[in-house]
Protein backbone atom coordinates (compact mmCIF):
# COMPACT_ATOMS: atom_id res chain seq x y z
CA UNK A 1 0.00 0.00 0.00
CA UNK A 2 1.48 3.36 -0.98
CA UNK A 3 1.62 6.25 1.47
CA UNK A 4 -1.16 8.19 -0.24
CA UNK A 5 -3.67 5.56 0.85
CA UNK A 6 -2.89 6.11 4.51
CA UNK A 7 -5.41 8.08 6.59
CA UNK A 8 -4.62 11.76 7.17
CA UNK A 9 -4.26 13.07 10.73
CA UNK A 10 -4.48 16.83 11.42
CA UNK A 11 -2.82 18.20 14.59
CA UNK A 12 -4.20 21.56 15.72
CA UNK A 13 -2.17 23.06 18.57
CA UNK A 14 -0.39 26.37 19.04
CA UNK A 15 2.52 24.63 20.77
CA UNK A 16 5.12 23.57 18.20
CA UNK A 17 6.52 21.13 20.77
CA UNK A 18 3.20 19.37 21.26
CA UNK A 19 2.68 19.13 17.49
CA UNK A 20 6.19 17.70 17.10
CA UNK A 21 5.60 15.16 19.88
CA UNK A 22 2.34 13.86 18.42
CA UNK A 23 3.83 13.71 14.92
CA UNK A 24 6.75 11.72 16.21
CA UNK A 25 4.55 9.37 18.24
CA UNK A 26 2.11 8.57 15.43
CA UNK A 27 5.14 8.12 13.16
CA UNK A 28 6.65 5.49 15.50
CA UNK A 29 4.30 2.82 14.18
CA UNK A 30 5.89 0.31 11.81
CA UNK A 31 4.39 -0.11 9.27
CA UNK A 32 3.13 3.49 9.07
CA UNK A 33 -0.49 4.07 10.12
CA UNK A 34 -1.08 7.66 8.99
CA UNK A 35 0.10 10.76 7.17
CA UNK A 36 0.10 13.99 9.17
CA UNK A 37 -0.47 17.70 8.74
CA UNK A 38 -0.51 20.58 11.23
CA UNK A 39 -2.22 23.84 12.10
CA UNK A 40 -1.41 26.38 14.84
CA UNK A 41 -4.98 27.40 15.74
CA UNK A 42 -8.63 26.63 15.08
CA UNK A 43 -8.94 28.96 12.09
CA UNK A 44 -5.92 27.41 10.39
CA UNK A 45 -7.31 23.98 11.26
CA UNK A 46 -10.64 24.71 9.54
CA UNK A 47 -8.75 25.95 6.47
CA UNK A 48 -6.86 22.65 6.22
CA UNK A 49 -10.08 20.69 6.82
CA UNK A 50 -11.82 22.51 4.00
CA UNK A 51 -8.94 22.17 1.56
CA UNK A 52 -7.95 18.54 2.05
CA UNK A 53 -9.32 15.20 3.15
CA UNK A 54 -8.71 14.57 6.87
CA UNK A 55 -9.61 11.35 8.75
CA UNK A 56 -8.79 12.30 12.36
CA UNK A 57 -8.17 15.59 14.20
CA UNK A 58 -6.11 16.25 17.33
CA UNK A 59 -7.23 19.56 18.84
CA UNK A 60 -5.90 21.68 21.66
CA UNK A 61 -8.53 23.74 23.51
CA UNK A 62 -6.68 26.93 24.44
CA UNK A 63 -5.34 28.55 21.29
CA UNK A 64 -5.06 32.10 20.01
CA UNK A 65 -7.26 33.37 17.11
CA UNK A 66 -9.77 30.50 17.36
CA UNK A 67 -9.88 28.05 20.26
CA UNK A 68 -10.60 24.33 20.08
CA UNK A 69 -14.24 24.50 21.20
CA UNK A 70 -15.02 27.06 18.46
CA UNK A 71 -13.29 24.96 15.82
CA UNK A 72 -15.11 21.78 16.88
CA UNK A 73 -18.44 23.64 16.89
CA UNK A 74 -17.74 24.86 13.34
CA UNK A 75 -16.89 21.29 12.29
CA UNK A 76 -20.12 19.96 13.77
CA UNK A 77 -22.12 22.60 11.88
CA UNK A 78 -20.62 21.50 8.55
CA UNK A 79 -22.08 18.20 7.27
CA UNK A 80 -18.85 17.45 5.39
CA UNK A 81 -16.67 17.83 8.52
CA UNK A 82 -19.09 16.68 11.22
CA UNK A 83 -18.29 12.93 11.00
CA UNK A 84 -14.50 13.41 11.46
CA UNK A 85 -13.47 12.13 14.92
CA UNK A 86 -11.78 14.71 17.16
CA UNK A 87 -9.34 13.89 19.95
CA UNK A 88 -8.96 16.78 22.39
CA UNK A 89 -5.49 17.36 23.83
CA UNK A 90 -6.13 18.74 27.26
CA UNK A 91 -4.99 19.18 30.81
CA UNK A 92 -6.73 16.83 33.20
CA UNK A 93 -10.30 17.90 32.48
CA UNK A 94 -12.80 18.21 35.29
CA UNK A 95 -16.28 16.68 35.08
CA UNK A 96 -17.81 19.86 33.68
CA UNK A 97 -15.27 19.96 30.87
CA UNK A 98 -15.76 16.27 30.11
CA UNK A 99 -19.52 16.88 29.85
CA UNK A 100 -18.92 19.85 27.54
CA UNK A 101 -16.60 17.76 25.35
CA UNK A 102 -19.26 15.05 25.17
CA UNK A 103 -21.85 17.58 24.06
CA UNK A 104 -19.44 18.60 21.30
CA UNK A 105 -19.25 14.97 20.16
CA UNK A 106 -15.55 14.66 20.90
CA UNK A 107 -14.32 11.09 20.35
CA UNK A 108 -11.67 11.03 23.09
CA UNK A 109 -9.38 13.24 25.08
CA UNK A 110 -5.67 12.94 25.53
CA UNK A 111 -4.64 14.22 28.96
CA UNK A 112 -1.28 15.95 29.30
CA UNK A 113 1.33 14.91 29.92
CA UNK A 114 0.84 11.90 27.65
CA UNK A 115 2.92 8.88 26.73
CA UNK A 116 3.52 7.46 23.25
CA UNK A 117 1.63 4.31 24.27
CA UNK A 118 -1.38 6.33 25.42
CA UNK A 119 -1.57 8.14 22.07
CA UNK A 120 -1.45 4.83 20.19
CA UNK A 121 -4.19 3.30 22.35
CA UNK A 122 -6.43 6.21 21.32
CA UNK A 123 -5.39 6.66 17.69
CA UNK A 124 -5.21 3.11 16.37
CA UNK A 125 -8.88 2.16 17.00
CA UNK A 126 -10.11 5.55 15.74
CA UNK A 127 -8.13 5.18 12.50
CA UNK A 128 -9.47 1.66 12.04
CA UNK A 129 -12.98 3.01 12.52
CA UNK A 130 -12.40 5.82 10.07
CA UNK A 131 -11.23 3.24 7.51
CA UNK A 132 -14.56 1.45 8.01
CA UNK A 133 -16.42 4.77 7.55
CA UNK A 134 -18.28 4.14 10.75
CA UNK A 135 -19.33 6.94 12.99
CA UNK A 136 -16.94 7.42 15.87
CA UNK A 137 -18.33 6.31 19.19
CA UNK A 138 -17.96 8.40 22.28
CA UNK A 139 -14.96 7.15 24.19
CA UNK A 140 -14.55 9.91 26.72
CA UNK A 141 -13.63 8.52 30.08
CA UNK A 142 -14.04 10.10 33.46
CA UNK A 143 -11.52 12.60 34.84
CA UNK A 144 -8.42 10.88 36.19
CA UNK A 145 -8.46 12.67 39.55
CA UNK A 146 -4.72 12.51 40.04
CA UNK A 147 -3.43 13.64 43.38
CA UNK A 148 -1.08 16.60 43.43
CA UNK A 149 1.92 14.36 44.04
CA UNK A 150 0.99 12.09 41.13
CA UNK A 151 0.36 15.02 38.85
CA UNK A 152 3.71 16.60 39.63
CA UNK A 153 5.54 13.28 39.28
CA UNK A 154 4.00 12.66 35.87
CA UNK A 155 4.85 16.17 34.79
CA UNK A 156 8.47 15.82 35.84
CA UNK A 157 8.78 12.43 34.18
CA UNK A 158 7.45 13.79 30.92
CA UNK A 159 9.92 16.61 31.18
CA UNK A 160 12.66 14.02 31.43
CA UNK A 161 11.80 12.80 27.93
CA UNK A 162 11.81 16.20 26.33
CA UNK A 163 14.86 17.71 27.92
CA UNK A 164 17.44 15.75 29.88
CA UNK A 165 18.73 18.78 31.78
CA UNK A 166 16.15 19.69 34.41
CA UNK A 167 15.91 16.29 36.03
CA UNK A 168 19.14 14.47 35.36
CA UNK A 169 21.50 15.42 38.14
CA UNK A 170 24.63 14.69 36.14
CA UNK A 171 23.66 16.99 33.30
CA UNK A 172 22.70 19.97 35.42
CA UNK A 173 26.12 21.62 35.85
CA UNK A 174 26.52 21.60 32.07
CA UNK A 175 23.71 24.11 31.60
CA UNK A 176 24.80 27.35 29.92
CA UNK A 177 25.32 30.43 32.06
CA UNK A 178 22.35 32.35 30.65
CA UNK A 179 19.86 29.68 31.73
CA UNK A 180 16.80 30.55 33.74
CA UNK A 181 16.08 28.64 36.90
CA UNK A 182 12.75 28.80 38.63
CA UNK A 183 12.15 26.89 41.80
CA UNK A 184 8.64 26.81 43.13
CA UNK A 185 7.59 25.60 46.55
CA UNK A 186 4.19 23.98 46.46
CA UNK A 187 1.89 22.73 49.17
CA UNK A 188 -1.33 20.85 48.58
CA UNK A 189 -3.68 18.42 50.24
CA UNK A 190 -1.33 15.48 49.93
CA UNK A 191 2.08 16.85 49.13
CA UNK A 192 4.58 19.53 49.81
CA UNK A 193 7.83 20.14 48.04
CA UNK A 194 9.58 22.17 45.44
CA UNK A 195 9.59 22.12 41.70
CA UNK A 196 12.42 23.49 39.62
CA UNK A 197 12.23 24.47 36.00
CA UNK A 198 15.42 25.23 34.16
CA UNK A 199 15.56 26.62 30.67
CA UNK A 200 18.23 28.11 28.46
CA UNK A 201 18.78 28.92 24.79
CA UNK A 202 20.57 25.55 24.62
CA UNK A 203 17.42 23.79 25.73
CA UNK A 204 16.01 24.21 22.23
CA UNK A 205 18.89 22.17 20.87
CA UNK A 206 18.47 19.56 23.59
CA UNK A 207 14.78 19.24 22.81
CA UNK A 208 15.54 19.14 19.09
CA UNK A 209 17.73 16.08 19.59
CA UNK A 210 14.62 14.22 20.76
CA UNK A 211 11.89 15.86 18.75
CA UNK A 212 11.69 18.14 15.76
CA UNK A 213 11.57 21.65 17.24
CA UNK A 214 13.56 24.79 16.39
CA UNK A 215 17.07 24.52 17.84
CA UNK A 216 17.41 28.22 18.43
CA UNK A 217 14.89 28.99 21.10
CA UNK A 218 15.07 31.77 23.66
CA UNK A 219 15.22 30.62 27.29
CA UNK A 220 11.82 32.14 27.99
CA UNK A 221 10.27 30.36 25.02
CA UNK A 222 11.88 27.07 26.00
CA UNK A 223 10.55 27.49 29.53
CA UNK A 224 7.10 28.20 28.18
CA UNK A 225 7.17 25.07 26.00
CA UNK A 226 8.36 22.97 28.93
CA UNK A 227 5.63 24.32 31.17
CA UNK A 228 3.15 23.80 28.37
CA UNK A 229 3.80 20.13 27.77
CA UNK A 230 4.35 19.23 31.41
CA UNK A 231 3.41 21.08 34.53
CA UNK A 232 1.72 23.96 32.80
CA UNK A 233 -0.90 21.70 31.42
CA UNK A 234 -1.22 19.64 34.56
CA UNK A 235 -1.79 22.68 36.67
CA UNK A 236 -4.78 24.72 35.69
CA UNK A 237 -5.00 28.42 36.20
CA UNK A 238 -7.90 30.44 37.50
CA UNK A 239 -10.81 31.21 35.12
CA UNK A 240 -9.81 33.63 32.40
CA UNK A 241 -6.16 32.76 32.64
CA UNK A 242 -6.15 29.70 30.42
CA UNK A 243 -3.64 27.06 31.30
CA UNK A 244 -0.16 27.43 32.63
CA UNK A 245 1.64 28.98 35.50
CA UNK A 246 -0.06 32.04 36.72
CA UNK A 247 2.01 34.68 38.33
CA UNK A 248 0.59 37.56 40.25
CA UNK A 249 0.18 39.93 38.44
CA UNK A 250 -1.22 37.44 35.92
CA UNK A 251 -0.04 39.03 32.66
CA UNK A 252 3.51 37.87 33.30
CA UNK A 253 3.00 34.35 32.02
CA UNK A 254 -0.32 33.49 30.55
CA UNK A 255 -0.74 30.62 28.15
CA UNK A 256 -2.23 31.61 24.83
CA UNK A 257 -1.30 35.25 25.25
CA UNK A 258 0.86 36.27 22.30
CA UNK A 259 2.80 38.82 24.31
CA UNK A 260 3.48 36.47 27.21
CA UNK A 261 6.96 36.21 28.61
CA UNK A 262 8.00 34.03 31.47
CA UNK A 263 9.50 36.47 33.91
CA UNK A 264 9.82 34.74 37.23
CA UNK A 265 11.29 36.80 40.01
CA UNK A 266 11.99 35.91 43.60
CA UNK A 267 8.98 36.82 45.70
CA UNK A 268 6.45 36.44 42.87
CA UNK A 269 3.31 34.65 43.98
CA UNK A 270 2.15 31.82 41.76
CA UNK A 271 -1.25 30.22 41.78
CA UNK A 272 -1.41 26.62 40.65
CA UNK A 273 -4.35 24.31 40.51
CA UNK A 274 -4.21 20.55 40.47
CA UNK A 275 -7.05 18.13 40.92
CA UNK A 276 -9.39 21.07 41.24
CA UNK A 277 -7.51 22.43 44.23
CA UNK A 278 -5.94 25.88 44.27
CA UNK A 279 -2.43 26.14 45.62
CA UNK A 280 -0.60 29.34 46.26
CA UNK A 281 3.11 29.11 45.72
CA UNK A 282 5.95 31.52 45.79
CA UNK A 283 9.02 31.78 43.61
CA UNK A 284 11.86 31.28 46.04
CA UNK A 285 14.75 31.36 43.60
CA UNK A 286 15.29 33.06 40.31
CA UNK A 287 18.78 33.35 39.04
CA UNK A 288 21.10 33.31 36.15
CA UNK A 289 21.77 29.62 36.35
CA UNK A 290 25.23 28.17 36.82
CA UNK A 291 24.82 24.73 38.32
CA UNK A 292 23.26 23.62 41.55
Amino acid at each position, binding site marked *: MSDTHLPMVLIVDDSATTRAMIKRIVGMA*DPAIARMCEAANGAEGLKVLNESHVDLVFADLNMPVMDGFEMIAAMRADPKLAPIPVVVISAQPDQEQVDRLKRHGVAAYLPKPFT*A*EHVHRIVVPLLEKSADREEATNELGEPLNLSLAEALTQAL*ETMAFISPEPVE*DAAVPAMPADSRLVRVHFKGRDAEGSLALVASPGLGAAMAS*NIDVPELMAADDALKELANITCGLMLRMRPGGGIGFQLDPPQLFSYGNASSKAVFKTGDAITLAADGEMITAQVVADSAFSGM
Partner: protein
Amino acid sequence: MQLVVGVSDAKVSNGSGDVLMTYSLGSCIGVSLHDAKVGIGGLLHYQLPTSTADPARAAEKPLMYADTGMTWLIEKMESMGASRRRMAVRMAGAAQMLDDAKIFDIGRRNHTAIRKFLWQQGMLIKGEHVGGATPRTMSLHMNDGSVTVKYNSQIIAL
Protein backbone atom coordinates in the same frame (compact mmCIF):
# COMPACT_ATOMS: atom_id res chain seq x y z
CA MET B 1 17.18 -24.54 26.00
CA GLN B 2 16.74 -22.33 29.04
CA LEU B 3 19.11 -19.33 29.07
CA VAL B 4 19.40 -17.58 32.43
CA VAL B 5 20.18 -13.86 32.40
CA GLY B 6 21.95 -12.70 35.55
CA VAL B 7 21.97 -9.26 37.16
CA SER B 8 23.63 -6.67 34.89
CA ASP B 9 23.55 -9.23 32.13
CA ALA B 10 21.87 -9.83 28.77
CA LYS B 11 21.38 -12.78 26.43
CA VAL B 12 20.23 -13.07 22.83
CA SER B 13 18.77 -15.97 20.93
CA ASN B 14 17.54 -17.03 17.51
CA GLY B 15 16.55 -20.52 18.58
CA SER B 16 12.81 -21.14 18.57
CA GLY B 17 13.12 -23.69 21.37
CA ASP B 18 14.85 -21.28 23.76
CA VAL B 19 13.42 -19.57 26.83
CA LEU B 20 15.31 -16.54 28.15
CA MET B 21 14.73 -16.05 31.87
CA THR B 22 15.77 -13.65 34.58
CA TYR B 23 15.11 -13.90 38.33
CA SER B 24 14.97 -11.49 41.26
CA LEU B 25 13.89 -8.33 39.43
CA GLY B 26 13.41 -5.91 42.33
CA SER B 27 14.07 -2.27 41.58
CA CYS B 28 15.96 -3.56 38.52
CA ILE B 29 14.20 -3.79 35.16
CA GLY B 30 14.07 -6.70 32.74
CA VAL B 31 13.58 -5.66 29.11
CA SER B 32 12.75 -8.15 26.40
CA LEU B 33 13.12 -7.30 22.71
CA HIS B 34 11.72 -9.59 20.04
CA ASP B 35 11.76 -9.26 16.25
CA ALA B 36 9.10 -11.74 15.12
CA LYS B 37 9.97 -11.43 11.43
CA VAL B 38 13.44 -12.93 11.86
CA GLY B 39 12.83 -14.81 15.13
CA ILE B 40 15.53 -12.99 17.10
CA GLY B 41 15.04 -12.06 20.75
CA GLY B 42 17.00 -10.69 23.68
CA LEU B 43 16.59 -10.09 27.39
CA LEU B 44 18.42 -7.49 29.50
CA HIS B 45 18.47 -7.21 33.31
CA TYR B 46 19.82 -3.79 34.28
CA GLN B 47 20.24 -2.25 37.72
CA LEU B 48 20.64 1.50 37.35
CA PRO B 49 19.12 4.29 35.26
CA THR B 50 21.98 6.06 33.57
CA SER B 51 25.62 5.46 32.71
CA THR B 52 26.44 9.18 32.99
CA ALA B 53 26.51 8.69 36.78
CA ASP B 54 29.72 6.63 36.47
CA PRO B 55 31.16 6.44 32.92
CA ALA B 56 34.20 4.39 33.96
CA ARG B 57 32.05 1.68 35.54
CA ALA B 58 29.68 1.81 32.58
CA ALA B 59 32.57 1.17 30.18
CA GLU B 60 33.45 -1.92 32.21
CA LYS B 61 29.88 -3.12 32.83
CA PRO B 62 27.61 -1.61 30.15
CA LEU B 63 24.77 -4.03 31.00
CA MET B 64 24.43 -2.49 34.45
CA TYR B 65 22.75 0.66 33.07
CA ALA B 66 19.56 1.27 31.07
CA ASP B 67 21.16 3.34 28.32
CA THR B 68 24.37 1.40 27.70
CA GLY B 69 22.63 -1.94 28.29
CA MET B 70 19.88 -1.23 25.75
CA THR B 71 22.42 0.06 23.21
CA TRP B 72 24.43 -3.15 23.59
CA LEU B 73 21.37 -5.40 23.27
CA ILE B 74 19.89 -3.60 20.25
CA GLU B 75 23.22 -3.56 18.42
CA LYS B 76 23.85 -7.22 19.19
CA MET B 77 20.42 -8.20 17.86
CA GLU B 78 20.85 -6.02 14.78
CA SER B 79 24.21 -7.65 14.07
CA MET B 80 22.28 -10.94 13.94
CA GLY B 81 19.77 -9.52 11.44
CA ALA B 82 17.02 -7.99 13.59
CA SER B 83 15.64 -4.46 13.08
CA ARG B 84 14.94 -2.06 15.96
CA ARG B 85 11.88 -0.73 14.10
CA ARG B 86 10.31 -4.19 14.35
CA MET B 87 11.31 -5.07 17.91
CA ALA B 88 8.45 -5.61 20.37
CA VAL B 89 9.49 -4.11 23.71
CA ARG B 90 8.20 -5.54 26.97
CA MET B 91 9.45 -4.87 30.48
CA ALA B 92 9.01 -5.83 34.11
CA GLY B 93 10.42 -4.77 37.46
CA ALA B 94 10.95 -1.26 38.89
CA ALA B 95 9.53 -2.26 42.25
CA GLN B 96 9.94 -0.04 45.27
CA MET B 97 11.81 -2.50 47.45
CA LEU B 98 11.45 -2.09 51.20
CA ASP B 99 15.17 -2.05 51.81
CA ASP B 100 15.75 0.73 49.29
CA ALA B 101 16.18 4.20 50.68
CA LYS B 102 13.03 5.87 49.42
CA ILE B 103 14.73 9.12 48.55
CA PHE B 104 16.54 7.44 45.68
CA ASP B 105 13.52 5.52 44.39
CA ILE B 106 15.72 3.58 42.01
CA GLY B 107 12.81 1.56 40.62
CA ARG B 108 10.97 4.64 39.46
CA ARG B 109 14.12 6.24 38.05
CA ASN B 110 14.96 2.99 36.24
CA HIS B 111 11.52 3.10 34.65
CA THR B 112 11.79 6.74 33.62
CA ALA B 113 15.25 6.10 32.16
CA ILE B 114 14.13 3.24 29.92
CA ARG B 115 11.06 5.16 28.78
CA LYS B 116 13.27 8.06 27.82
CA PHE B 117 15.68 5.78 25.97
CA LEU B 118 12.81 4.18 24.03
CA TRP B 119 11.34 7.62 23.27
CA GLN B 120 14.68 8.73 21.83
CA GLN B 121 14.88 5.56 19.74
CA GLY B 122 11.27 5.90 18.60
CA MET B 123 10.33 2.49 20.06
CA LEU B 124 6.91 1.80 21.63
CA ILE B 125 6.37 -0.27 24.76
CA LYS B 126 4.17 -3.23 23.86
CA GLY B 127 3.60 -4.41 27.40
CA GLU B 128 4.87 -3.85 30.92
CA HIS B 129 4.36 -4.93 34.52
CA VAL B 130 6.14 -2.50 36.84
CA GLY B 131 5.96 -1.03 40.34
CA GLY B 132 4.69 -2.64 43.48
CA ALA B 133 7.00 -3.99 46.18
CA THR B 134 7.55 -7.64 45.23
CA PRO B 135 10.35 -9.15 43.11
CA ARG B 136 9.53 -10.62 39.70
CA THR B 137 10.75 -13.37 37.40
CA MET B 138 10.52 -12.69 33.66
CA SER B 139 10.64 -15.11 30.72
CA LEU B 140 10.84 -14.58 26.95
CA HIS B 141 9.57 -17.61 25.03
CA MET B 142 11.32 -17.70 21.68
CA ASN B 143 8.80 -20.04 20.04
CA ASP B 144 6.23 -17.23 19.76
CA GLY B 145 7.92 -14.14 21.27
CA SER B 146 5.54 -14.13 24.22
CA VAL B 147 6.65 -12.81 27.60
CA THR B 148 5.45 -13.97 31.01
CA VAL B 149 6.09 -12.45 34.41
CA LYS B 150 5.86 -14.28 37.72
CA TYR B 151 4.67 -11.90 40.42
CA ASN B 152 3.34 -12.88 43.85
CA SER B 153 3.20 -16.52 42.61
CA GLN B 154 0.92 -15.49 39.72
CA ILE B 155 1.89 -15.85 36.06
CA ILE B 156 1.04 -12.76 34.04
CA ALA B 157 1.25 -12.58 30.22
CA LEU B 158 2.56 -9.24 28.93
